[in-house]
């Protein structure tokens, strides 16, 4: 069909023939692998009380391997009174602390016991403590620090969770209809929700997806900024511009090749990162609820493994938008260096302004859905978009991005056809 496949192949060859593309991909993929790997790098050293000499207790890799065996046996347990009280008993409410109260006075709280000396430290006890701490952290996130004690029951926890959710929705300025939509979804949640013993690999995969998003933006800027300007610099634009398929068919082939390289680069980085997350940290816990691992107030059933796959899918989609953006800017500026500078500027802007004030409801929401912004917080943002029915951010983002790609492609085409060859 108008030699589209052949032209697409040659455009890919042009892009992939550049050493800079491979160097950038190698470096950024190495960063993608190293980031999750740092979770299991290094060791824990404890200072001996008497001598002050540091002793290595365990390596983080060994601790992680041990944690994967779920030594506390929490996997599959319901998150209820028994589990909360077991965690309290295991950690012990040994210490009493006086802390400033919200009204300015002082209040006394009980805290869990922390290891007092070297004798308390061992890999086995540390892993168990971490497992139980997570149980109590979840309770604290709902009932508040200082309210987790021997009297707390599972029913109280779930009642408080429903209240906290409603307060959160109200604080975000959500309508009654939106709240009712979430209430209906939250009734689908299993209560008490099942606890998972270990899900660190998938948890890290979700947390690091945003980093790949940023790296994919960098890669797109490096790989694609020169796509059109180089034709001008090399003076090949006159040759291709007067060829039969040198206008729209070549533009489409070039644009698609650019998107392919952008998405392909992101896919390589994601594969490296996911491989490191699951290979080095562990693939267990795919089905762990996001309420346990990320946001306890999230009002719909969703597992951390599914969220990781969705996040990676979104990252691939975002990389297509990054690619389209860089190509459009390169056509506007007619300069590879300028296109790269604008792309890096946009990247910095997204990092420096991760969110807009909540009083700008629609603008803030739109900002949070931008492909350079959407991260862990955005995935589980309860704000809804009304499009036919209600859509969550995970459903709205790909639709918005598809529209952005189409608009950028049309804008770039409008500019491209008007720009004369050199």
């Amino acid at each position, binding site marked *: 069909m*108008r*030699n589209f496949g*052949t*032209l697409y192949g*040659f455009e890919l*060859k*042009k892009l992939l*023939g*550049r050493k800079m593309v491979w160097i950038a991909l190698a470096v950024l993929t190495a960063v993608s692998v190293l980031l999750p790997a740092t979770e299991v790098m290094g060791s824990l050293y404890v200072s001996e009380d008497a001598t002050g000499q540091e002793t290595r207790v365990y390596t983080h890799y060994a601790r992680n391997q041990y944690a994967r065996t779920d030594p506390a046996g929490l996997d599959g347990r319901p998150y209820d009174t028994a589990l909360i009280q077991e965690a309290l008993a295991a950690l012990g409410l040994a210490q009493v602390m006086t802390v400033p109260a919200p009204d300015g006075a002082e209040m006394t709280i009980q805290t869990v016991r922390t290891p007092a000396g070297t004798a308390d430290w061992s890999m086995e006890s540390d892993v168990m403590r971490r497992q139980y701490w997570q149980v109590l952290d979840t309770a604290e996130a709902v009932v508040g620090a200082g309210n987790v004690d021997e009297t707390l029951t599972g029913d109280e926890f779930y009642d408080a969770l429903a209240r906290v959710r409603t307060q959160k929705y109200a604080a975000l300025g959500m309508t009654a209809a939106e709240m009712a939509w979430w209430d209906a979804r939250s009734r689908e949640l299993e209560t008490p929700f099942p606890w998972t013993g270990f899900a660190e690999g998938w948890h890290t995969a979700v947390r690091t997806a945003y980093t790949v998003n940023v790296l994919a933006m960098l890669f797109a800027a490096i790989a694609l900024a020169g796509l059109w300007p180089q*034709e001008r*610099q*090399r*003076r*090949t634009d*006159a*040759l*291709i*511009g*007067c*060829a*039969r*398929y*040198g*206008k729209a068919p*070549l533009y489409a082939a070039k644009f698609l090749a650019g998107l392919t390289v952008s998405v392909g680069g992101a896919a390589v980085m994601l594969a490296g990162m996911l491989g490191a997350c699951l290979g080095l940290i562990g693939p267990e816990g795919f089905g762990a609820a996001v309420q346990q691992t990320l946001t306890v107030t999230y009002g719909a059933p969703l597992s951390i493994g599914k969220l990781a796959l969705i996040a990676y899918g979104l990252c691939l989609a975002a990389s297509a938008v990054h690619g389209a953006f860089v190509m459009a800017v390169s056509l506007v500026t007619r300069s590879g260096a300028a296109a790269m500078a604008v792309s890096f500027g946009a990247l910095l802007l997204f990092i420096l302004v991760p969110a807009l004030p909540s009083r700008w409801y629609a603008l803030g929401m739109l900002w949070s859905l931008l492909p350079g912004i959407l991260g862990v917080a955005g995935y589980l943002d309860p704000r809804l978009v009304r499009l036919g029915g209600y859509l969550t951010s995970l459903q709205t983002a790909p639709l918005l991005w598809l529209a952005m790609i189409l608009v950028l492609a049309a804008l770039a085409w409008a500019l491209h056809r008007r720009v*004369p*060859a050199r």
Partner: protein
Amino acid sequence: MELVIDRLSKQFQAKIAVDRVSLRLGPGVTGLLGPNGAGKTTLMRLICGILKPTAGTVAFDGMDAGSEKYRAALGYLPQDFGYYPDFTGRDFLMYMAALKGLSKAEARRRCGQLLEMVGLADVQKKKVKTWSGGMRQRLGIAQALLNDPKLLILDEPTAGLDPRERVRFRELIAALGRDSVVLLSTHIVSDVEHIAGRVLIMGDGQIVHDGAWDAREDLEAFYLAQFGEEGHDA
């Protein structure tokens, strides 16, 4: 088979590069001469549809210069064209063939023929960046002929070629002119003298001479007479 140029003008800010040029070119080689800055290259780029005219039209057998059909009939060798450093000579021609609408099988056959014709068959698998200027120029000529163009626009086609190659390509251009419209711009007056049946001379964006040429006449002397002292660089 006719190229019709009607009151064609191109203005770049305050400079009028091509000024109300009207021409009808039929089959055969037409030579285009003129001093630097006369507007020859701009006129050729307008004919190729690379530049949009400020006013006027260009059509070939009724097809507008902006149309795909027009470009399908067109072969163009720019004065100064680029290449893709990591492409081999064959890659470059196959790419250009795809752009010109040839099927893969047709492209393979035509590339083989043209690489033989321009004497690059033995280096076709080497990257173009390793080639000499003359070899690249021959590659440029080959790409212009890929689609058997009925309208061939050649801007300095023999620049960079050694004398023996120049004569060979001059004969090739003359042969192409038998059943195509060929517009040949060059600073080498003798090339035009030998193969052009008609000569156009441009000055300040306008056609200052348009007429048939008898190879027995001294074109260089005629050309210099048009521009006096200023015509030396033609």
